[in-house]
């Protein structure tokens, strides 16, 4: 139908992989398919579409609608083609008079219980029921519509993003199966039997919002009718074009079709061909894109002399020359090293590369860092030291070959939801699970979970736990001697270290709080299977010994030979969309792109040749060092792209003091964020929908980001940096991000084969992609390590200085939840607020009772760094002595409380351990009151600049 965009072929049932092929004849066409393939799929491959309603290729076949009936020579009746496997020599007929009549009768029954409002239905033109009625040639319904039917059933519009209209339901159960098989949440059931059966969310009487539903949208995507449908489609109608791009939220890097009607994004549909997500997504990527056109968007450049003055809207040229002049003045006054910049893990590789290039070439120093400093810098250090490369070793799909999965300090169902769903699927298939976490995470509630262990350690004892696991492996002879002998070095020294009784589970029990017996059983579960895989997150890195734990994890994998093939490996789950990429692109002050040290003369000279400028051979300042230098008066100018350090970084009051000391703070962002309230220059940024580029996900997969709508401020972020650089006197003249990627490839040995052409051809590429691996490297370290042999690093446990005492008896740990993303700048500006509109403090009932705290009470939380006030949630999933909160809302001030303790090797902040006291209070903290006044004033400065004009254009 004209004007309706239709996605690719639906093969009806999922792909099967087999070494054996079978050949069959379908309506005179011969076709050969892997054994186990359904007749329906074989037919589709042969170009013959069999009518269907309950089958779709993202779900296992179910065989309920019978519309797909076929005839098979030598068999009685009309078997369902979706549930019948193709066999060698089969002869199948998909079309004849008898089948046509059968299908028409079935359709007639469906349609007689279906409202005939096709012309006004939001699915009109994109409805499988409508298509099938056409396909089977249904012209009239003999039963009439007066009999018993469901046409008056009430709509459920409790979910902010989709509506459930049961009057249109054909009870095909696709939604129920999507929720189970694809998402793994099991929120939906078919209630009742026969004619009375209906889809129900949660237990009887609950609506979607009250149920366990996590709003992933898999059911909406699977629904063949308008029963489950996006509200935006109801509002705007069916989309008419699509652009394939990559989600800008988490490190899973899901591929999406941004489906548009004109210039309006109607919906985001996860792409079936997406190599990271295979057609699945979470609530953020699929639904929470409305921030892109939120009225809070600032789309014009602004400047001001002082942060105590209103903003002034100016032209791009004026903004660039103002910023450049200020930066130059500062350098003239305080020296070349008195300015720096921060790249963003949310921006594209090309944008990040340009920012660090501008700093090194135009600022003339190496004062570049990235927000990965505060999340995964220990991964870079730890994995480079042990395995020789600062990256995870696997693909996401590798999890499907893992026999035991060890998850340390990560909460995948909330923070990496699509990978969380894959993990749950593997757990349902029987893999064993070990979770090392102070909290009971949702993964432990996986329906149909088998053998599992929860090592509920005390915050701050990761290294002790990892060492005791390694001790158990070695003392029980579970190591892989062959692998160790061939592929590693420094084993003897490490072995001696680990086998020292101080590292035994029995001795460390007192430190970790995990029983020695449980540690030993978990060690056997990990080391005693063919494939053990480790996944870890910020619960590992954000500690004073973050880097040590990463090395300990690598040691454990090396000792058990769990590196270099599918099903095993060391997998850092990256927080933001482009954490991997921002690290790869040379954001760190000591490394040029590709993790090449600035002190290496040959590396530097290669860059100097292409960049035509002399480069500094000494490392620059890291973010916390910049703040310290600012407070002490040596650092005066900062360019921040797409990051909100005033909100996300620890010890907020220290950060605010540093930002307040700036003589020129340039913020490039889509909103006037917390940091921008301290800025002198605001350069409007663009969302992922408005630009071209690439993101690199947690599996080193480089995915294309494609422009779907025009950039609201007129320039894409890479163009802004390029013009600022030129204003500073260092000319940049790229015409397209692909040219930037060509330069990256020329200077980065692990990227040398990467190009936009290759990305177009392959869909995505996992680096290293070079002469040795021309098509990329799904699994790393298969034959050797970049450093030849992997290195066992010694990992002595050094307790953090941040300890609980009488004054601060509880340990605070911080984290994330599913519906919000990082500082919340995007998700707070969407309907995701329904699920989490404020940060709360979770506290164990025991600690709550001791302090007379009830759910909903206002709590004052104080640490050595500062105080804030949050509402209480009494929660069993905490252990006594540990409290937890999120930092998605700026006003909560979670980071006012966190300290500036950090990882010994990388200065990654210790967000996961802060000693605190908690007590009931009746008023806000001083910081909250001051912050409120400050924010209101800054908002007034913005409003003054805007006058009456609406800010966002759409």
């Amino acid at each position, binding site marked *: 139908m004209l004007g309706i965009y239709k996605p690719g072929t639906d093969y009806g049932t999922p792909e099967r992989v087999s070494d054996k092929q079978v050949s069959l004849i379908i309506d005179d066409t011969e076709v050969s398919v892997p054994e186990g393939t359904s007749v329906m799929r074989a037919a589709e491959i042969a170009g013959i579409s069999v009518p269907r309603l309950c089958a779709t290729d993202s779900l296992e076949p179910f065989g309920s609608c019978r519309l797909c009936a076929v005839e098979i020579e030598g068999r009685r009746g009309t078997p369902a083609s979706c549930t019948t496997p193709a066999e060698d020599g089969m002869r199948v007929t998909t079309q004849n008079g008898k089948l046509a009549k059968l299908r028409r009768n079935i359709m007639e029954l469906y349609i007689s219980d279906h409202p005939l409002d096709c012309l006004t239905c939001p699915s009109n033109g994109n409805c499988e029921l409508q298509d099938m009625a056409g396909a089977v040639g249904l012209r009239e319904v003999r039963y009439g519509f007066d009999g018993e039917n469901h046409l008056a059933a009430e709509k459920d519009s409790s979910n902010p993003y989709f509506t459930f209209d049961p009057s249109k339901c054909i009870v095909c159960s696709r939604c129920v199966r999507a929720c189970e098989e694809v998402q793994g949440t099991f929120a939906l059931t078919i209630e009742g039997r026969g004619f009375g059966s209906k889809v129900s969310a949660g237990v009887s009487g609950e609506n979607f919002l009250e149920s366990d539903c996590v709003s992933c949208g898999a059911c909406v995507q699977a629904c063949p009718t308008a029963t489950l449908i996006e509200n935006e489609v109801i509002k705007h109608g069916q989309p008419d074009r699509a652009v394939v791009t990559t989600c800008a939220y988490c490190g899973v890097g899901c591929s999406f079709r941004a489906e548009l009607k004109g210039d309006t994004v109607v919906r985001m549909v996860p792409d079936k061909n997406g190599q990271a997500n295979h057609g699945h997504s979470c609530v953020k990527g699929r639904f929470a894109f409305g921030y892109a056109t939120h009225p809070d968007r600032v789309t014009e450049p602004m400047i001001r002399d002082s942060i105590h003055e209103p903003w002034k809207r100016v032209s791009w040229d004026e903004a660039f020359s103002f910023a450049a002049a200020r930066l130059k003045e500062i350098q003239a006054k305080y020296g070349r*090293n008195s300015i720096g910049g921060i790249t963003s893990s949310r921006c594209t590789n090309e944008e990040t590369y340009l920012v660090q290039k501008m700093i090194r070439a135009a600022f003339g120093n*190496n*004062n570049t860092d990235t927000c990965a400093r505060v999340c995964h810098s220990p991964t870079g250090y730890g994995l480079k030291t042990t395995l020789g490369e600062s990256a995870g070793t696997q693909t996401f799909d590798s999890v499907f070959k893992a026999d035991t999965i060890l998850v340390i300090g990560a909460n995948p169902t909330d923070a990496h939801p699509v990978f969380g769903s894959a993990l749950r699927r593997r757990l349902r298939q029987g893999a064993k699970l070990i979770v090392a976490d102070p909290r009971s995470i949702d993964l432990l509630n996986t329906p149909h979970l088998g053998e599992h262990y929860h090592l509920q350690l005390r915050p701050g004892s990761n290294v002790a736990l990892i060492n005791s696991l390694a001790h158990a492996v070695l003392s029980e002879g579970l190591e892989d001697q062959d692998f160790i002998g061939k592929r590693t070095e420094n084993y003897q020294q490490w072995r001696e*270290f680990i086998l020292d009784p101080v590292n035994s589970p029995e001795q460390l029990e007192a430190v970790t709080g995990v029983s020695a017996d449980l540690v030993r059983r978990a060690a056997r579960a990990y080391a005693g299977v063919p494939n053990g895989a480790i996944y870890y997150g910020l619960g590992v890195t954000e500690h*004073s*010994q973050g880097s*040590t734990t990463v090395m300990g994890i690598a040691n454990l994998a090396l000792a058990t030979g769990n590196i270099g093939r599918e099903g095993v490996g060391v997998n850092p789950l990256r927080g933001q969309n482009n954490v991997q990429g921002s690290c790869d692109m040379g954001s760190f*002050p*000591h490394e040029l792109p590709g993790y090449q*040290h600035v*002190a290496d003369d040959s590396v530097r000279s290669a860059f100097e040749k292409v960049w035509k400028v002399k480069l500094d051979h*000494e*490392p*620059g*300042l*890291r973010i*916390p*060092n910049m703040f*310290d*230098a600012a*407070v*002490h008066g*040596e650092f005066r100018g900062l360019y921040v792209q797409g990051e909100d350090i005033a909100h996300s970084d620890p010890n907020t009051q220290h950060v605010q003091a540093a930002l307040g000391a700036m003589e020129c703070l340039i913020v490039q962002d889509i909103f006037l964020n917390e940091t921008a309230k301290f800025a002198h220059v605001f350069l409007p940024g663009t969302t992922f929908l408005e630009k071209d580029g690439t993101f690199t996900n947690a599996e080193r997969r480089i995915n294309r980001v494609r422009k779907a709508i025009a950039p609201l401020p007129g320039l894409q972020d890479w163009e802004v940096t390029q013009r600022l650089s030129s204003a500073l006197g260092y000319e940049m003249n790229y015409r397209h991000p692909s040219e930037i990627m060509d330069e990256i490839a020329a200077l980065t040995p692990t990227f040398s084969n990467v190009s936009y052409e290759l990305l177009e051809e392959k869909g995505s590429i996992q680096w290293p992609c070079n002469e040795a691996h021309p098509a990329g490297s799904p699994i790393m370290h298969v034959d050797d390590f970049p450093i030849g042999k992997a290195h066992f690093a*010694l990992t*002595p446990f*050094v307790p953090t200085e941040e300890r609980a005492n009488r004054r601060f008896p509880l340990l605070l740990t911080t984290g994330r939840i599913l519906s919000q993303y990082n500082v919340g700048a995007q998700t707070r500006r969407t309907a995701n607020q329904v699920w989490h509109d404020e940060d709360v403090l979770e506290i164990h009932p025991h600690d709550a009772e001791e302090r007379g705290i009830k759910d909903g009470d206002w709590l004052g939380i104080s640490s050595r760094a500062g105080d804030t006030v949050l509402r209480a949630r009494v929660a069993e999933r905490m252990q006594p002595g540990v409290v937890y909160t999120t930092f998605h809302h700026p006003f909560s001030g979670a980071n006012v409380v966190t300290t*500036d303790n*950090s990882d*010994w*090797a*990388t*200065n990654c902040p210790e967000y996961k351990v802060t000693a605190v006291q908690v007590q009931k209070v009746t008023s806000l903290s001083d910081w909250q009151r001051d912050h409120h006044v400050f924010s209101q004033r800054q908002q007034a400065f913005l409003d003054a600049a805007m006058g009456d004009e609406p800010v966002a254009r759409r």
Partner: protein
Amino acid sequence: MQKESHTNLVKMVNQIAGNVFFKDNHDEAIDKVATHMRKFWAPSMRDELFEYEARDGHGLSDIAREAVRKLRRDS
């Protein structure tokens, strides 16, 4: 009260020393701490610590102090 500018640096270098020291690898640990500072610290941070170590040095652990001295000698 504003912390003095070397306070954090002393804390950082002590932390590095504490993490690379193991049993009797005293000399190796000094080397590792010095190398770490050379590889990852900006020169201004090193200079400040050199100056502090020469002036006062209070609060530096033995290995940290030795490493600072070694780095100054070598640079």
